[in-house]
């Protein structure tokens, strides 16, 4: 099913570099010069030189061959250069595909960032690069050197050439017939290895847990199952290798055998000693090694190429059309105004239902909520109650199973991502900071902001000390060297700068200290527009105008006072969220 994928991609890569391939072919032709001449020149050297007692004559013929060898060697160098010109663009294409696939997968609805993409980029792509090059070299090497040897043989002794071709073709046919099965088994072997690795990694990562549960035997037996599966796959591969050797034996050794059997008869017909020697050279240094290289190359690197590229294509499907679907063209449809002032509400959620699967109990059921401009809502609830899911639904990142979300009268499901980004900004817990200057990072959502605007933002959100420590707006930022809190602060400044009227902070300040968190939230509250804070600390709820309590099946909205009276969950959350009950008068030492 996916093998045509490998074939199509390979074929496309080859067609794209026809010119370079022509260059490769040209140099290969020159490279095969010694293979073409070897037997013939040695035959002349023996017949007309050494056996005729004319040593210098013989040496002269060999000298011609030596020159051909040097020319061929120079051409070998050129073939590698041409090879690079074919392989590197292909590698570029695979790299772009891996990267695009990984990014699309991570950012599409319900997708998850897959760190294995990095392995695909660094490890698997390199395998594809090396094996693709190897495959090209081996195939054209076989075509040219086997062709040259056969031509030479034809010139020297046409009958021998005819006799040698038959077993060669027979060996090739056996090998090519077995090739699809080899690919299948090689694939099974690679998968078995991956599964063994995954299973072992999980079991060993939980070594402590397994011991603590006394489940050693059970877990080790589970991993051992994969050990046996891989051994079985390895045995099948050994059988395949045996078939490969057999085809090599038929194609490589039988011509020699044929030549031996036919030699006395050929000599009777006037074949000279030199010609016999030359024919032997064509068969044993031309045909046999060429076939050997082809079979080993296709059977080793070729299989690795097919299986690895297939693996890459499976996870990063090739799209011939690289544009996103036509959603972009459509204009968002506006509903008639609904608010009392004639303006639609900033956020309107109606009858929202969402669950992780068709059979799962929904996280939200028939949920409705309206926020007007300049509203400030905090969402609280125990972990796992669906707070982040609600944030994603509000931002239009996840489609609900039922119900609608409108932003300022526009239905989010009908807006393409770039337009949606101008309507709302979502700041998740895991802040995104990339390698680049601080200014680049801050301008991410508002590329036209001038330096002064950035400076004001830094001051407003209390990020001045961080900016100074980093070395100002132009200073490079290395995300790995920042703490989680510092990354969150940069992401917060960036979101504050964004032109979108609605801001959703999804535990976006959980790594900031409480004082800085208050500064950041206050800055967002003063900002024109509407603010939704998925709260990590209960203090966020105290700062909000209204609070939404998510817990189980009945979400409740109200002011702090209303909820203290109406929601038992809210009372528990307020009572003991941070470290609460301190059994002594030393309460003052704790931060509230």
């Amino acid at each position, binding site marked *: 099913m996916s093998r045509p994928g490998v074939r199509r991609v390979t074929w496309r890569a080859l067609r794209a570099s026809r010119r370079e391939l022509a260059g490769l072919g040209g140099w290969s032709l020159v490279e095969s010069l010694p293979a073409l001449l070897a037997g013939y020149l040695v035959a002349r050297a023996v017949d007309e030189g050494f056996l005729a007692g004319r040593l210098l004559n013989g040496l002269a013929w060999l000298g011609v061959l030596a020159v051909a060898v040097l020319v061929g060697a120079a051409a070998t160098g050129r073939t590698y250069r041409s090879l690079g010109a074919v392989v590197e663009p292909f590698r570029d294409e695979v790299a772009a595909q891996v990267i695009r696939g990984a990014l699309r997968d991570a950012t599409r609805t319900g997708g998850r960032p897959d760190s294995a993409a990095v392995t695909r980029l660094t490890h698997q792509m390199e395998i594809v690069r090396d094996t693709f090059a190897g495959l090209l070299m081996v195939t054209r090497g076989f075509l040219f050197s086997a062709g040259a040897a056969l031509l030479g043989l034809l010139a020297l002794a046409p009958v021998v050439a005819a006799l040698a071709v038959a077993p060669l073709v027979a060996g090739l046919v056996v090998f090519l017939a077995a090739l699809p099965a080899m690919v299948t088994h090689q694939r099974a072997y690679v998968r078995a290895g991956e599964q063994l690795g995954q299973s072992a990694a999980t079991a060993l990562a939980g070594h402590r847990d397994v011991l*603590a549960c006394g489940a050693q035997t059970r877990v080790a037996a589970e991993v051992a199952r994969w050990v046996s599966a891989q051994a079985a796959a390895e045995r099948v591969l050994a059988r395949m290798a045996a078939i490969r050797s057999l085809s090599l034996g038929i194609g490589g050794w039988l011509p020699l055998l044929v030549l031996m059997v036919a030699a006395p008869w050929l000599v009777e017909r006037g074949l000279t000693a030199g010609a016999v020697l030359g024919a032997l050279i064509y068969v044993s240094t031309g045909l046999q090694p060429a076939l050997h290289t082809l079979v080993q190359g296709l059977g080793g690197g070729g299989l690795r190429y097919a299986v690895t590229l297939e693996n890459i294509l499976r996870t990063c499907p090739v799209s011939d059309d690289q544009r996103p679907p036509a959603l972009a063209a459509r204009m968002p449809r506006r509903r008639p105004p609904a608010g009392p002032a004639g303006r639609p509400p900033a956020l309107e959620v109606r009858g929202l239902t969402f669950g992780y699967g068709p059979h*799962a109990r929904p996280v939200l059921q028939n949920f409705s909520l309206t926020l007007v401009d300049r509203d400030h809502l905090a969402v609280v609830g125990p972990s796992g109650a669906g707070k982040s899911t609600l944030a994603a639904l509000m931002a239009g990142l996840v489609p609900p199973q039922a119900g609608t979300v409108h932003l300022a009268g526009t239905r989010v499901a009908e807006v393409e991502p770039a337009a949606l980004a101008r309507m709302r900004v979502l700041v998740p817990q895991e802040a995104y900071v990339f390698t680049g200057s601080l200014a680049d990072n801050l301008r991410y959502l508002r590329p036209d902001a001038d330096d002064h605007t950035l400076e004001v933002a830094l001051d407003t959100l209390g990020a001045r000390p961080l900016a100074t420590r980093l070395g100002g707006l132009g200073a490079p930022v290395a995300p790995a060297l920042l703490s989680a809190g510092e990354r969150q602060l940069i992401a917060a400044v960036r979101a504050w700068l964004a032109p979108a009227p609605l801001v959703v902070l999804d535990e976006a300040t959980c790594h900031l200290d*409480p004082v800085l968190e208050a500064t950041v939230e206050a800055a967002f509250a003063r900002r024109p527009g509407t603010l939704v804070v998925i709260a990590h600390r209960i203090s966020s709820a105290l700062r909000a105008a209204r609070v939404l309590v998510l817990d189980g099946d009945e979400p409740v909205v109200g002011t702090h006072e209303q909820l203290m009276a109406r929601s038992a969950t809210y009372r528990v959350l307020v009572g003991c969220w941070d470290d609460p009950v301190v059994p002594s008068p030393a309460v003052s030492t704790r931060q509230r």
Partner: protein
Amino acid sequence: MPTFAVGDRLLRQTVLAGGGWTAGLAAVALLGAAAELLLPAALGRAVDAALDGGSAWWAVSACALVVVLICVDTLTDLASGFGAARATAGLRRRLLRHLFAVDVRVTCRHPVGDLVGRLVGQAADAGQAGNAVVLAIVAVLPPLGSVVALAIMEPVLGLTLLVGLGLLAVLMRAFVADASAATAGYQRVLGNIAGRLLESLTGARTIAAAGTTRREEDRVLAALPELDRHGRHTWGLLARASARTSAVAPLLNLSVIAVGGYALTAGWLTPGELVAAVRYAAMGAGLGAVLATLNHLVRSRAGAHRVAELLTQPATPAGDRPLPPGGGALRLRGVCVHADDGRPILDGVDLDVPAGATVAVVGASGAGKSTLAAVAGRLYDPDGGEVRLDGVPLRDLDAAALRRAVGYAFDRPVLIGATVHDAIGLALPVDAAAPPADRSPATPEVLRAARMAAVADVIERLPSGYRTPLVDTPLSGGENQRLGLARAFAAERLLILDDATSSLDTATEHRITEAVLGSAGGRTRLVVTHRTAAAAAADLVAWLDGGRLRGLAPHRQLWADPDYRAVFQPADGGS
């Protein structure tokens, strides 16, 4: 290094583990080497016979040798593949058993990736030992033999070959140095691109919300032209190196023919002998490639060494005493644990936990809390002192009885199993651990544990409930912890919670504490915690300071001490 000797012993064992396959391989390979060495001579005689109209016997024997060679190649593949599969699987099973027989301290010294690498990669290298030894020895025979044969036939021919081989070795060495320097630049650029990709993947949610996927693609791909340049540079270097080396072998062959031609003119050789000489020379030129097979041996030995390193770690000795009736009274006497560098982590700790009591273990980070928790349930043995459960030293206790009695929950539990159900049931007997065959969502034991850990709600919202595959279940830190807690509730006498509720909001923690206190009566609890609420809820607090027990009293009593209060202050103003 003594371990090298151990590694070599393992290598020998692995060679033997291939069993009949390795012996068969040796026999077949020896036969093949003999046939390969005899063939040129037979061919030469056959050519002479054909030219002189002599006997056809030599041609027949040459054909027989060719048939033998075809069979040998095929059988070699079969025997080496089957032998390696058998030896590798045996080695892996042995290592796997051993890894789960050693205690946690041993495996903690190695990153998981390293352990997996040894089990998957290096065990496979070591499993090739039989093939590597046999083939390395046998593969040297034809080239060496051919040098000897040439020298016997005509000493000058042998000498020519040897000089050429030396030249070849020098050129190959130069290439290796060239290529490695060139690939470094390529690898660096590739690393940069991978780093940027990882950054973008980490910020996937931000990028999705901002609709900037395309911009991110451009950012990550920006360095591609540079990669292309480095890539082409490596091909250029390869081109130069290959142009140099590819001339040598044919020229070597040619010089043998030239010398042989002279010998032919002088009448020292027959045409058939020249045929044989040319073939011997080609075979001898393969000596460089044969030396490469020695690499396999080196790799095999290195693999065996790395596997043996783990196998020599002593397994935890298991006791055989059953557990007498009791309520889970825990008693530590003079417990000492040292770090690998000899620094004391626990230094003579005496602690009594009465049956059914809850004891909170508190202390600054590095005070030895987790170590105390680890030795209390025998995740490993203390270096000194003794731990008893209901009067029986843990060392003497039957392993199965110990695990039935003691349960652990951790700060960052690793969940194991195909489904959520399996993960909760890890400590349960097999029939209760696997999802039920009928349509009920889970076994009663698993359901009860999930409810107690306040995680039943979360599981019911998963796509397939308890049968949801773990790999498809994105769990937050708090949800992970609750599944880890549910798993631990199978314990009958002693529950050890090592910071096991640190990621839960206090509302959830409160529910769990109530559930555990309510229905786990009779179970003793040892609770490592950073929270005052948890310490206050315990019957007693064991206050650890620098590896010693500084206090054992109710929380209210200890709270008067400012040093004790300082234990609960966050290290910085952050979360």
